[in-house]
């Protein structure tokens, strides 16, 4: 905007001031902010004039703002206490109503208060006829894709401190996260694409507020240093930052106002989270633009002999103490390199002593302002008169030239050893103390392939789907069932004698019948009928739990009480009868009689086994 078009208006506020007001007046700050820079014709813009450090400034009448009508909304007073320090502010709120489309500007404003003039910057505002493009509703995932998706609400800016640098020269890198009225949590340090660059770790992030084009932003700033590894037109970035965006659930259309205003940067309060949380968390991935950086190679002309790669702008100091020693006593050399530059490239300036000294490795200390090498040297002879000069060479990145700084020689006095003593210098495998190592930066990649193909098997051939394996699983169950049945039977046989005898009856009968069959084949009728009689006695005794010796044909009648079929009783009687006949009229017994008796007996036993008694 041209200066002649600047509308500057002053307000002289006449207020009765007291000590408190004047005390605050010393820290007064004036800010003009808008809620958006782009607005549609049928919408409005909120304009806030905020005075920090006082609440005594009255309403200000705005001048005519080209392209807008304005309306005063009222004041808002705020008081906050941070670290025991009270801050008060007053915000005069206005609404700007666009009246035509185009590019406009809220002019810079100037306020005179308590003898001082406070000024603001101009704020550009674009008025469009149609709706202002915004993220499509419902496509929450698109929030994370690019900067444009969230418009001016949240974005990432990558800044390089230098556009041109030499190889290994420090390039300050800043990644800034700008957030305007959004709730963001779980912010991770940004990942920086840095091919052909080495990157330091991030320092502790800074947090502050910044007004950009009139819009207030909460900013988180991550700082680090980059070093170009190779010469060329390189690209640093883009930076990517992962965080979580908290959005209110759509079912809750009520937006309760917070006593801390509508600044949601730090996310919803603990109460919301505790009582079920009115928020949903979405992953958000912000990406910045990349930054071109030209990395130049160091000049190859006029390179000092003792240049070891140090880059920056340095001062070099050399100290030695004590300066009077005996042969074999240590002298501590302190080589201090201070200034600005990449201290990782600064190495210990070499001391060339030609065998006069025993020189130990230096103890290195490094901080932001310098690098200190403490080196122990021991004079070996009394002929040593001085510590030789030490030269430190570096490439001055600001002038683009090599520079060398030489310190010394430093005179010293070396006294001989007392009589009877001899010089002993102990060799140590390492330096006198652990040398500070440059911060190691690890590369990232996948681990190499395996040489062995491993145990190949058919795809999807799982053990649990193998039919033999499945069949095997039934074996333990069957074994357990069999064991239970076997154990129960065994226990009953031991406990229940009638049951044991009944169970043993057919087995014993079978053995006796076998003997009878042998006697039948031999034609020995007496033995045969004795065997038949014994079979009947033992079988019936065991089957009905009766004393075996007392079983005769007379007992058979008593078996009717066991609910036995009368045909079986008759057959049993016939068997007993045949045995009695054979005993008393043995000569009349034929082989057919014996055979018939045996068949009858087998039939009877078979029927008794089948009968449910």
């Amino acid at each position, binding site marked *: 905007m041209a200066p002649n078009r600047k509308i500057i208006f002053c307000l002289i506020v006449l207020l009765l001031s007291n000590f408190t007001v004047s005390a605050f007046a010393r820290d007064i700050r004036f800010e003009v902010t808008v809620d958006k820079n782009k607005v549609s014709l049928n919408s409005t813009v909120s304009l806030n004039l905020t005075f920090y450090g006082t609440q005594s400034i009255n309403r200000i009448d705005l001048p005519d703002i080209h392209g807008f009508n304005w309306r005063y909304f009222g004041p808002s007073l705020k008081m906050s206490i941070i670290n025991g320090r009270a801050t008060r502010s007053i915000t005069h709120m206005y609404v700007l109503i666009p009246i035509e489309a185009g590019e406009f500007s809220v002019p810079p404003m100037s306020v005179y208060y308590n003898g001082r003039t406070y000024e603001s910057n101009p704020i550009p505002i674009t008025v469009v006829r149609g709706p202002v493009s915004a993220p499509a509703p419902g496509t929450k995932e698109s929030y994370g894709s690019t900067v444009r998706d969230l418009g001016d609400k949240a974005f990432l800016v990558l800044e390089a401190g230098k556009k041109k640098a030499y190889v290994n020269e420090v390039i300050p890198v800043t990644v800034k996260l700008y957030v305007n009225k959004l709730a963001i949590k779980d912010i991770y340090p940004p990942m920086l694409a840095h091919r052909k660059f080495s990157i330091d770790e991030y320092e502790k992030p800074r947090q502050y507020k910044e007004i950009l084009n009139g819009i207030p932003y909460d900013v988180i700033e991550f700082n680090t240093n980059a070093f170009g590894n190779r010469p060329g037109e390189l690209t640093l970035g883009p930076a990517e930052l*992962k965080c979580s965006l908290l959005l209110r659930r759509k079912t809750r259309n009520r937006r309760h106002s917070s006593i801390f205003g509508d600044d949601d940067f730090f996310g919803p309060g603990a109460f919301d989270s505790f009582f079920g949380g009115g928020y949903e968390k979405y992953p958000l991935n912000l990406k910045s633009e990349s930054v071109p950086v030209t990395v130049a190679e160091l000049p190859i002309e006029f390179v000092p002999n003792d240049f070891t790669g140090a880059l920056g702008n340095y001062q070099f100091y050399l100290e030695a103490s004590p300066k009077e020693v005996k042969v074999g006593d240590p002298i501590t050399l302190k080589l201090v390199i201070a200034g600005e530059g990449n201290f990782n490239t600064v190495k210990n300036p070499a001391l060339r002593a030609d065998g006069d000294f025993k020189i130990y490795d230096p103890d290195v200390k490094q901080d932001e302002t310098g690098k200190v090498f403490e080196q122990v040297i021991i004079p070996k002879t009394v002929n040593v008169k001085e510590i030789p000069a030490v030269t430190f060479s570096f490439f001055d990145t600001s002038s683009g030239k090599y520079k060398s700084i030489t310190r010394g020689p430093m005179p010293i006095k070396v006294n001989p050893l007392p009589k009877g003593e001899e010089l002993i210098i102990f060799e140590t495998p390492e330096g006198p103390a652990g040398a500070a190592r440059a911060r190691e930066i690890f590369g990232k990649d996948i681990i190499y392939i395996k040489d062995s193909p491993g145990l190949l098997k058919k*795809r999807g051939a*799982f053990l649990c*789907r193998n039919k033999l*394996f499945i069949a095997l699983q039934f074996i333990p169950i069957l074994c357990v069932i069999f*064991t239970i049945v076997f*154990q129960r039977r065994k226990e009953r046989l031991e406990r229940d004698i009638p049951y044991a005898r009944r169970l043993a009856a057919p087995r014993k009968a079978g053995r006796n019948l076998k003997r009878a069959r042998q006697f039948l084949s031999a034609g020995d009728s007496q033995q045969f009928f004795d065997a038949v009689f014994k079979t009947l006695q033992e079988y019936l005794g065991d089957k009905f739990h009766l004393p075996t010796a007392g079983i005769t044909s007379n007992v058979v009648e008593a078996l009717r009480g066991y609910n036995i079929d009368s045909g079986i009783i008759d057959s049993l009687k016939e068997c007993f009868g045949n045995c009695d006949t054979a005993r008393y009229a043995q000569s009349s017994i034929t082989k057919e009689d014996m055979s018939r008796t045996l068949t009858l007996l087998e039939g009877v036993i078979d029927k008794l086994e089948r009968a449910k008694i």
Partner: protein
Amino acid sequence: MKVRKYVISLFLILTFAAPAYCATKDTARLLILEGNARYSEEKFEEAIAEYEKVLSMGYESGPFYYNLGNAYFKHGELGRAILNYLRAARLMPQEADLKANLNYARSLVKNGRVTLGRNWYARLFFALADSFSLDSITFVFMILYFTLALLVILAITKTGPGKVYLYVNSALFAVLIISVSLFAIKYKKEILEKEAVCVVERSDSKFEPSIGGTTFFTLNEGEPITVTASKKDWVKIRRQDGKQGWIKRTDIDLL
């Protein structure tokens, strides 16, 4: 006659089928070694071609999937690299190199990993399940099951001190229940459910299986998903945070 037929059949099987089986396995092994050679020459595309032949023969092994994942990674196909690392993780879940490569590949997935929040005990249980392959859990289950059955039999026959059996059996039963639960989780995950990985750079997940459908969310290359249904050229998928949608069948590859 019948017996003779069986003998002849068995002889033919042993003579021809078994060597053929061994021959194909040896061929697969040679193809992997050939792929390894191409990989070491940094001819990643040729290495992938050799490895894929083994896959088409129906063979697999943990180191083979690991190498295939590496080849895809070097070839710039992050999705297929993660897919094969996950396949390898099913067969050799404790492999440290594999874990490192998988974690690194996952860290390159755009927008990070979308994961479902679980309780600490659920996380512990699932982490335990992920520490074993399905076959190793099955084997452990079988050993426990057989041991428990043997001890139960001994307890029934009362051939040892009863109380000791009771304590041992109770402990063994508890371990068996845990192993059965782990087995169930692994079985569901690896056999019943169809896990997949997005293998294209971006895939829009729609509310319905059609190109004109509204996009619900977007999958990035390398994101793991579960296939729940399919319809022609579309599959219904479930993301790890439970969100479901339809994507093109060609955008994913099953584990």
